[in-house]
């Protein structure tokens, strides 16, 4: 009898998990499995699997220049976005870590990008970057067609994305700074450390746990950027801003090649998963205390 109730207790845990699991199943596991399934087929225009082609979609991708271009563009994009957004967030958080009059205004404005819709921000950037009426060219006196020039388009989109993502980083870093004991700064002052030494010897190491978390989230987030690219450049000019996510969108909904799009999704998934795993491995060595 006792054994039976214990078994029931063990089983009841799964019972509690069911509601959450159902939601996951419908919105996550089913689409995921379906994507893998689709990636092995040729589809019709409605996205129905028609002809089984095995790994043909994948081999086609891995031999196409366009796909490698997408990969390269994505890597550059992610690097700029992650470095940019973390720097902006970190600098903002450090500046706002000391109390001064008007700090609320500043903190709010640093955190604000978080609350701005990416497509809305992209619309505004489109005006700012406009070669004839845009304020950027007016202020700098340059005459550059930012969005239409393959040299600058990717950087523009990346900088916009970095700024958009910086809001949440600001919050993470502010929380991280709040966790650092104030008195170690006081001790460092008495010990004779100046501001820069304190930043590099105390603040940065103190932020290392949250820094890692932020890095992982930022990389994943950067890989998945879409709205601002669609509005601002639509993958162009040429294919200079055709990051994988946009390429998936284009293949699926313009070219109606759902099979190829699904295959790209699977590859993107594998890349992000591999990166995340690698970073968790590194974390165990890198993050102190």
């Amino acid at each position: 009898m006792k054994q039976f109730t214990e078994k029931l207790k063990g089983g009841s845990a799964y019972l509690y998990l069911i509601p959450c699991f159902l939601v996951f199943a419908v919105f996550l596991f089913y689409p995921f499995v379906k994507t893998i399934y689709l990636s092995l087929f040729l589809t019709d225009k409605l996205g129905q699997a028609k002809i089984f082609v095995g790994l043909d979609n994948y081999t086609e991708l891995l031999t196409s220049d366009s796909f490698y271009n997408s990969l390269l563009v994505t890597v550059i994009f992610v690097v700029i976005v992650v470095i940019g957004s973390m720097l902006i967030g970190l600098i903002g958080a450090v500046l706002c870590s000391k109390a001064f009059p008007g700090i609320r205004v500043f903190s709010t404005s640093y955190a604000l990008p978080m609350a701005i819709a990416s497509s809305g921000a992209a619309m505004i950037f489109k005006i700012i970057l406009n070669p004839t009426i845009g304020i950027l060219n007016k202020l700098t006196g340059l005459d550059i067609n930012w969005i239409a020039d393959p040299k600058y388009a990717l950087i523009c989109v990346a900088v916009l994305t970095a700024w958009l993502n910086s809001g949440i980083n600001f919050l993470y870093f502010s929380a991280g700074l709040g966790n650092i004991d104030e008195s170690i700064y006081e001790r460092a002052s008495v010990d004779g450390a100046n501001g820069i030494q304190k930043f590099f010897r105390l603040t940065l190491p103190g932020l290392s746990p949250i820094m890692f978390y932020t890095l992982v989230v930022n990389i994943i987030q950067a890989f998945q950027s879409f709205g601002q690219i669609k509005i601002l450049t639509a993958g162009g000019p040429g294919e200079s801003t055709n990051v994988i996510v946009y390429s998936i969108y284009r293949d699926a909904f313009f070219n109606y090649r759902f099979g190829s799009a699904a295959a790209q999704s699977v590859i993107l998934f594998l890349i992000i998963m591999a990166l995340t795993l690698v970073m968790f491995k590194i974390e165990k060595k890198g993050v102190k205390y």
Partner: protein
Amino acid sequence: MSELLLKNVCKMYDRKQYAVRDFSLKIEDGEFVIFVGPSGCGKSTTLRMIAGLEDITSGELWIDKQLCNYVETKDRDLSMVFQNYALYPQMTVYDNMAFALQIRKVPKKEIDKKVHEAASILGIEHLLKQRPGALSGGQKQRVAIGSAIMREPKAFLMDEPLSNLDAKLRAQMRVELSELHKRLGATMIYVTHDQTEAMTLGTRIVVMKDGYIQQADTPKEVYDNPANRFVAGFIGSPSMNFFEGKIRPTDKGADFEFTNGLRLEIPENKAFALANEYRNKNVILGVRPEHFFAEVVQKDPKADYTKRTLSGKIVAREMLGAESMFYLEETFAGEFAVRLPVETKGRVGEEMALFVDMDRVHFFDADTEKNIFYRGGQQ
């Protein structure tokens, strides 16, 4: 090593409330000065002003004949031990101790030598590779002190460094700190709320209350010659007993009269002054628990000891080992504590008559609470 001079230093918060007022003190080279007082008396604030962690609202701070009010903390060349130790959590014990020297770009070999030297003094050599998170309170405290003694600063500042330790460890560290002071011969300023620490460690005690210095003197002077009722009550454990009453002149000199009319004879040396200045006025009598005796100790054959007796009902009795604490109650005198030899008889509920060592009692002005017989003292 060096001397510190504070001149009328004040600290005001929010432009209305004084945390420290008119703090003037000269600290000589090699002194071990203790700031002691109840919480909120401004002792830590004063220490932090010396360190430069708090601005000085008004007044002057001189370190080694240099005005330091506006010198940055990092340039004052002091070292400090914090109440919570403030160890750098992400650094090993070694780096924690070496930090101040690494900042100063001291050669690595020299740092290494000094770290090991300090670690061996404090017995923490085996911990050098650990991080602070893995240490116990006592070990952290040693590391904090170790980091402080790496350099030869102008002065050591210590902000209640022992308050987080258990009683036994605290007693042990007290001895070690005292030895450390002798060994380094350094100027030390030490903040505590614990009067035992103050009495045992300091070469000079600065008793503070409500932002004011009450008395600054050697432990013995502060104990035997308190400036006012507050100092008398704060220093000494258990604290001094206070009784209200009046001075009544007699043909021999003067008596202290309790509110119910019971009188204690005042010895000649104090009687005349009291009879003159405080004739029939209210005073407060202060008697330390150890200045009561269960049996008469005839010091002065001429004195009439029957006139120096106070009795009360025992309400509690505590064994302290060699001695016993008796807590007595008397309707007109309130409750008072008495320290007597352990073999003294007396059970809770019984009446007990005690002789008061009137040569060692203190008289305080009822209005100003100042010690009527306070003998100047240094500042």
